[in-house]
């Protein structure tokens, strides 16, 4: 059973910022604070709403602190930087302002995982989920396509809660239909009677789909779940899904320590779900050059590796 794949030629960050642009045109309280980071869609924002756009320079602590003061005074602030700098660089600032003071800042990190493939290790983000998860009150979104990213732009614009939104840098195919309800937190994109379910997030959902499409045996064909809201996880509804399978494979472009695989393992354990789990992700941090697929291969999280695990 194949999944529909629609053509797409726009990266989700542009779709996301276009949507925030529309909100900002109507609502002067929407502000964007970036750490010297651009995107084509942001040029328009900066040109049309210079009063709502602040570039603090390459200073992520300053970015979060400024956002905190603005947010406390009633502004609806989005911060923006490459994922490692938006998260781990200023982690304690996020903990204090979003976690402890519950200031509803929206932190947007671009290019998680190996999104900045050939920029090398400094720009890879293979720990953001595990370090952002323990921050109290912080929601975490990880869309896999532009339709979902647009919906997350709407959800976070209206939400009074702090959030971290990890947006893939590359152009990814569209999976969801326009108008999909994204309040559930995850979607079972493909059901299966084959006994195996792949749970993934962000760009790796596409790897899971590609692997599933290559499996010819109907008996082995896996189900696929996309977790686009990592926190709060809709564990109740997810538990109902997991009960239908014998085996779950978690797939992430992220360290195994505390990532999506850990989250699903915790859910399985906490809810006494009789299912075997295989975690696919980075056991240790390694990197290679030559493109994202090459790095994924080196890490054992590419399509072929997923097929191998499904067929085991």
């Amino acid at each position, binding site marked *: 059973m194949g999944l529909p794949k629609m053509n797409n030629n726009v990266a989700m960050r542009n779709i996301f910022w276009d949507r925030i642009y529309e909100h900002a045109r109507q609502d002067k309280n929407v502000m964007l604070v970036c750490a010297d980071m651009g995107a084509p869609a942001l040029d328009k924002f900066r040109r049309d709403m210079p009063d709502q756009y602040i570039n*603090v320079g390459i200073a992520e*602590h*300053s970015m*979060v602190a400024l956002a905190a003061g603005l947010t*406390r005074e009633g*502004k609806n602030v989005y911060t923006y930087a490459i994922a490692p700098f938006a998260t781990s660089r200023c982690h304690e600032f996020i903990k204090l302002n979003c976690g402890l003071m519950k200031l509803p800042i929206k932190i947007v990190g671009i290019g998680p995982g190996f999104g900045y493939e050939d920029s090398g290790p400094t720009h890879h983000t293979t720990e953001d989920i595990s370090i952002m998860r323990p921050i109290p009150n912080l929601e975490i979104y990880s869309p896999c396509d532009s339709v979902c990213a647009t919906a997350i732009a709407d959800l976070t614009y209206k939400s009074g809660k702090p959030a971290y939104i990890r947006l893939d840098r590359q152009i990814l195919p569209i999976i969801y239909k326009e108008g999909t309800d994204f309040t559930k937190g995850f979607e079972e994109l493909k059901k299966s009677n084959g006994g195996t379910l792949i749970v993934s997030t962000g760009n790796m959902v596409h790897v899971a789909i590609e692997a599933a499409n290559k499996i010819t045996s109907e008996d082995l064909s896996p189900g696929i779940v996309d977790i686009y809201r990592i926190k709060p996880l809709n564990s109740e509804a997810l538990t109902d899904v997991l009960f239908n399978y014998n085996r779950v494979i978690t797939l992430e472009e992220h360290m195994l320590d505390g990532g999506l695989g850990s989250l699903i393992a915790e859910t399985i354990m906490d809810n006494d779900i009789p299912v075997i789990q295989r975690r696919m992700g980075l056991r240790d941090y390694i990197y290679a050059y030559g493109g994202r697929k090459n790095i994924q291969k080196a890490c054992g999280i590419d399509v072929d590796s997923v097929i191998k695990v499904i067929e085991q």
Partner: protein
Amino acid sequence: MYLYFLSYKCLNRVWTVLYTEMEAEKLRYLEDKAHELRHLTLDMCIRAKTGHVTSSFSAVEILTALYNGKILRKDPKNPRWEDRDRFILSKGQASPILYTTLTDNGYFPKSWLRTFNTANGHFGVHLQCDVPGVEYTTGSLGHGLGIGNGVALAAKKNSRDYKTFVLLGDAELQEGSCWEAAMLSSTLKLDNLIAIVDRNGYGVLCRTEESAALNPLDKKFAAYGWEPRVINGHSFEEIFKSLEDARTRNKGVPLVVIANTIKGKGLPSWQNVALRHGTAPTNGEVDQIIDELSAGCRYSNGKKCPLYGFDDLDKWKCPRWDCQK
């Protein structure tokens, strides 16, 4: 004509005398209040057996001037009043002096002080934003100035005329985030932002100049586009003078007042003793420390200021009037 001139001169003279007397009275009131707040803070920390006494005592005059000296525009009955001046205590370890100042100004009942750091208490060692009058949770350093940027910028965006005051520790300025923020404040032309540096010269272990040197601090701020003013942070006159144009400044340059202070001011045996950071007097030290504080009160006549009673804390007043008898 001569008579008219004489009477004008006379009136002027009377006014000058009256004004000077009023100013002197105000200073006396503030000095007494500073002593009272030191007393209340010390007692609270002795009872709780914790709290940053010395970090609080270097900032007493600054806080007394801001709150009791009416530099800040405030409404204790409505702590979230939209037009209040925002005061951010970035050196959150000095929470004891802010808590006592806030209760003295009517933000919450004095009896809350007795619950400092207890199981059913309202607050602990570092500063919490859910206490009435406290704007932000602090305690980890290097946050306040950056947040102050956001608050001051929001005032401009929202066309409000409140001022944003940030009290920084000097050792806190060793955090790089302060300088990230400082260069942004001037870039954003935040002339409605006033930073005050409690320059007591010490971190936890040693003098700041022995760990990561800050001097020349005024020149550093000037180089970052700020207007620095260096004062004696225990002189009310100098504090008022340094902030007299705080409400009218409009040249696009943020103001920093570097207040030279003494860590542990008022407790001679603890002053400038690095390892007294973050501690309260223990049992064997209490008597001597209370003696030292009492000696700083103009009314004590050699008597010891008594510790306050826990049960009638809301009725507690500084016992200086008793000392006068």
